[in-house]
């Protein structure tokens, strides 16, 4: 059972915060809530939100977490922290004092990351709690409305959840409005200024198709359906908006999982080590810290990967080896400056591309694998020939790159309001069963036929879903 009082936590928190300030971390105000394991399971099921709209999938996720926990398959996380201002973190009541200290230090790492990394700028942390609460109130109102009811709400939510990650990934890039897109299309169609106009053949003028919907391929499927399906009623549109907003709130977490966990682990280590713990606590710290950041053979532990890159980056700018100086030149800034800069301007893909070195990859023995028959077989390892390829594969699976890129090409395909989408195939085929079911959800929301162009085993194909069901057409 717990070997501490609340006052102990408050005292330790004060010491940790001194260190946080000393190291230059820049955090939102922090709130800690102490909860038991049931509470923790509850928060986990609802992504940590104190208030969240109801849907059966959260019940499912709770049951699953609970079953795993009850059977000892998985433990509970030591903490959970949400990106909000003030940042809210949950501490498990039954943890030991050392775990609470470690956890609090770790939480401040996340907190700093949330506040400073550029991907989180779009999440409006100061409104997080209120936004989720407002969503919950709206969804509950629709559920309780006798003319709507839970069945209809679920019909829309089920479909919307299936499509929620099909949205823009880099939210820092502003999406152009329709008017801006039209202006841009017209400008692009203008003949270019040609200093040799007199001797050149006059340029042909291609009239831009400004009536076309969408003008440029659109990745925000839910918002697109909301804006261009005239048969949706207001509450349905609102549900789509809610689901889309929530997905976009979580996109940055997905985009920075490795950096974020690595960053928090890096700082909890620095902070706790600087606290000069008594020996017993310190030994426990070493054990716990290694449990968190240990490599898991055959898998990829984001804590480990992130932690190693941050550590390596700091070392290369503080204490580079002669070969590194020869290759990269002498460091222009201090290690601390460098890592603070990286935590602000990178996300997982760019972070790995820039800072995961060949040596580090070899040291961690990273490999990529591919399915061959029913086996997963190692394809390339991090040797001088293969490391680039392993790195490329890694970049392709981190962040939101694990989600297929699917864009709306045409809302009026064949002039019969068929929704035409295109999957940007990058060598990875879609899972067909999942694609079929997800298309059926898409068709439910769009109300008419939906066609998805993709590549299946090297052949261009169209997956169609209409009122008669699912079909696959091969394209020439």
């Amino acid at each position: 059972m717990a070997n501490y009082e609340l006052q102990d936590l408050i005292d330790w928190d004060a010491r940790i915060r001194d260190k946080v300030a000393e190291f230059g971390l820049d955090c939102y105000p922090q709130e800690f809530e102490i909860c038991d394991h049931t509470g923790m399971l509850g928060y986990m099921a609802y992504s940590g939100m104190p208030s969240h709209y109801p849907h059966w999938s959260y019940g499912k996720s709770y049951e699953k977490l609970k079953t795993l926990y009850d059977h000892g398959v998985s433990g509970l996380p030591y903490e959970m922290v949400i990106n909000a201002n003030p940042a809210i973190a949950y501490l498990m009541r039954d943890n030991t004092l050392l775990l609470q200290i470690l956890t609090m230090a770790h939480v401040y790492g996340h907190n700093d990351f949330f506040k400073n990394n550029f991907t989180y700028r779009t999440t409006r942390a100061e409104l997080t709690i209120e936004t989720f609460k407002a969503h919950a109130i709206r969804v509950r109102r629709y559920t309780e409305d006798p003319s709507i009811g839970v069945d209809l709400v679920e019909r829309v939510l089920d479909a919307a959840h299936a499509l929620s990650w099909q949205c823009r990934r880099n939210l820092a890039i502003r999406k152009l409005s329709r008017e801006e897109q039209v202006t841009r299309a017209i400008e692009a169609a203008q003949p270019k200024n040609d200093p040799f106009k007199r001797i050149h053949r006059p340029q042909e003028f291609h009239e831009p198709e400004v009536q076309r919907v969408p003008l440029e391929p659109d990745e925000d499927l839910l918002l697109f359906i909301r804006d261009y399906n005239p048969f949706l009623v207001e509450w349905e549109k609102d549900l789509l908006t809610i689901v889309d907003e929530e997905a976009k709130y979580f996109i940055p977490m997905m985009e920075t999982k490795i950096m974020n966990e690595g960053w928090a682990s890096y700082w909890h280590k620095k902070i706790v080590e600087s606290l000069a713990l008594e020996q017993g606590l310190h030994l426990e710290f070493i054990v716990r810290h290694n449990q968190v950041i240990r490599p898991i053979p055959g898998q990829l532990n984001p804590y480990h990967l992130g932690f190693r890159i941050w550590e390596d980056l700091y070392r290369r700018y503080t204490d580079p080896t002669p070969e590194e100086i020869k290759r990269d030149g002498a460091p222009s800034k201090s290690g601390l400056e460098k890592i603070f800069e990286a935590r602000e301007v990178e996300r997982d893909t760019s972070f790995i591309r820039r800072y995961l070195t060949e040596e580090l990859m070899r040291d961690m023995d990273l490999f990529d694998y591919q399915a061959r028959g029913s086996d997963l077989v190692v394809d390339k390892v991090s040797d001088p020939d293969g490391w680039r390829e392993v790195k490329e594969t890694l970049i392709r699976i981190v962040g939101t790159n694990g989600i297929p890129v699917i864009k709306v090409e045409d809302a009026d395909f064949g002039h019969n309001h068929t929704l035409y989408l295109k999957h940007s195939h990058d060598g990875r085929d879609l899972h067909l069963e999942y694609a079929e079911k997800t298309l059926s959800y898409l068709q439910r929301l769009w109300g008419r036929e939906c066609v998805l162009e993709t590549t299946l085993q090297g052949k261009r194909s169209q997956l169609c879903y209409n009122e008669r069901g699912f079909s696959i057409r091969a394209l020439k």
Partner: protein
Amino acid sequence: MPTDTIFREYRPSDAERSDRSAGDRLRHRQKVRESIRENIADIIAEESIIGKDRDRVIKVPLRGIKEYRFVFGENAPGVGQGDGNAHPGQVVGKVGKDGPGQGEDKAGDRPGVDYYETDVTLEELIEIMFEDLELPNLERRALREIEAERSSKRKGYRHVGIRVRLDKRRTAKQRVMRKLASVKEAGAEPPDPVQAWQPRRFPFHQDDLRYRHVEVETREESNAVVICIMDTSGSMDTMKKYLARSFFFLLYQFISTRYRNVEIVFVAHHTEAREVTEEEFFHKGESGGTFISSGYQKALEIIAERYHPSLWNVYAFHCSDGDNFDSDNPAALRAAEDLAEVCNLFGYGEIKPLGSRYYESSMLNIFRRLEAPNFHTVLIERKEDIWPSFKAFLAKDRIKETA
């Protein structure tokens, strides 16, 4: 730092009060149940549930509650971390399993870990299966509702009653008690010495009499008997027998789950029919030719002897491959007519594993001439047909009121 950190202490009362996921969990369970119901036909076809223990746990695939998204299929590569000597060609996992590189971080990356099946005991499964089935037309005729149970129970004692129920022992006890009480009452003054030696008469009084009280309990319930008739002739091969038995097994489970007072009679026939036990019915095979009429005659006999239709709701179900001796067909038709007359429902299931109906004779053509409204036929061609045909016989809303 500008503001102080806020600590919110743990309060057990809060934790107990807020079970926020209760509603969503309930909804999820409803979905699981629905999903099981939708898949019952497949479960019955896949699982050999005949004669299985009711506590047995069955794996039931759940299709309705998977959360689908666009994800990559199996040709998507992954990255893992080795133990220091990973080499090309090394096998690191199995496709479809939770392979390497499947950390929690890649939400939406692949189908991933989702539970596709749930464990259900046979008992639960049967309960879900039979939720909306019922013996049709059970309460159609009020006349058939008779005392299902008649029991007399002793219940206490009364001062009044009939002679035969007089409880002598208790009555005598009462008298003694009364006598003692009267002595005590009189005890204030010394007993009369003259009368002390003379035995004083102390007769029984009306108040001493105690009668046993008997309460008669009757429970009105409709009586029903289900007659299962199965063809066990030589032409019924293993597959056919399996299908027929599966059907009857469902019927048996259904009846014993839902009705307490329904009797079940098993009749097996080839050229002759005889009544058999449940054990024999489900586990024994026989051989020989087929006279379907014999099975029906036996059923009629049993009904005449034990289950008079004015007192009983009679249901008869017959499973056969329809490969009857031609000479028996007229007799079979006649017997079927008779049977349809005395039964609330008479069902005939013809078992024709795929293809066999092209070269074997069928009773379906012959029974087509039978025009009783309570006679129904189904064709069972494969395992998947068992559940639909079973439902066709027993669905609640199937029978239109013919009266």
